[in-house]
């Protein structure tokens, strides 16, 4: 009779060993426990505690610094780009700023000057 390799023999023996299944009640209890744990977790998810915890912690400092830099850059550039309406810029180094606001006295004055012009 040829001798078998001991590893193979023990592997075959143990792999074919049947001892039955665990109790079904365990599965039910575990699922119920998971459900309980999960329901308490969902309450926590509604709060901002974890977000503020992350915000004021030392973790992800690079990311936070980057975000703040981007916000600052955008706000500064926004003010720089904003051109006042009603300003006329000239290219010949003479900068004339006229505020085109309706002024009733100017109208009266111009009407008077027109009248005097017509009398003359």
């Amino acid at each position, binding site marked *: 009779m040829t*001798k078998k390799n001991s590893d193979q023999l023990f*592997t075959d023996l*143990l792999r074919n*060993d049947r001892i*039955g299944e*665990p109790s079904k009640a365990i599965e039910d209890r*575990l699922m119920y426990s*998971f459900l309980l744990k999960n329901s308490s977790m969902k309450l926590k998810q509604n709060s901002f505690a974890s977000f503020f915890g992350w915000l004021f912690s030392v973790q992800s400092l690079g990311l936070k610094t980057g975000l703040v830099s981007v916000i600052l850059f955008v706000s500064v550039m926004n003010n720089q780009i904003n051109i006042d309406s009603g300003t006329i810029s000239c290219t010949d180094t003479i900068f004339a700023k006229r505020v085109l606001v309706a002024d009733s006295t100017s109208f009266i004055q111009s009407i008077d000057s027109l009248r005097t012009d017509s009398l003359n």
Partner: protein
Amino acid sequence: MIFRRKNREYSDAELMQQIVSGDQVAFNGLYHRYKDRMYYYFYRMLGNASEQANDFLQELFMKLIEKPESYNTAYPFQTWLFSVANNMCKNEYRRREVRKEYQTSEVWRPNLDYMNDTSVEPEQLIEKIFATLDQLGEEHRSAFLLRYREGFSIKEVAEILALPEGTVKSRLFYAKKMLAEKLEYLKDEIEL
């Protein structure tokens, strides 16, 4: 999401990530994947006691429910799960040792009358093997089970038991040697 789950088999690590975020379907999947293996391990490690094996199985998965984040996804899940199970068995042996000090008269000894039988059925042989391994101690039994039942490599067994590979090899060799010596049937059947 539901359709994706039906079509795809998730890895253990992926299921664990879903469990951390409270996915019960993932937990159910992981339980069904491992319940029989873990039950067998506890059954054989704790002296063939089905009730205790059930209790330990429940306790093991309760740990997973309570602290799923304790699993590091960088390591293989089954190695981690068996190491947790093995630590639970070790704690149980310690408790038994303490109890034994108070109950010295009731020390259980395996019945070894059958040892010299020359022909046995596979079921009987398994019982004989574990009765023989009981004489060696739990550390030999755990290495034997993990290697031959679960099919872990020597390196993985060493990781689970937190031992050097050489120690695992020597335990397996010593267990096989003792089995060959004790069981007449095996002596004729195997070569070490």
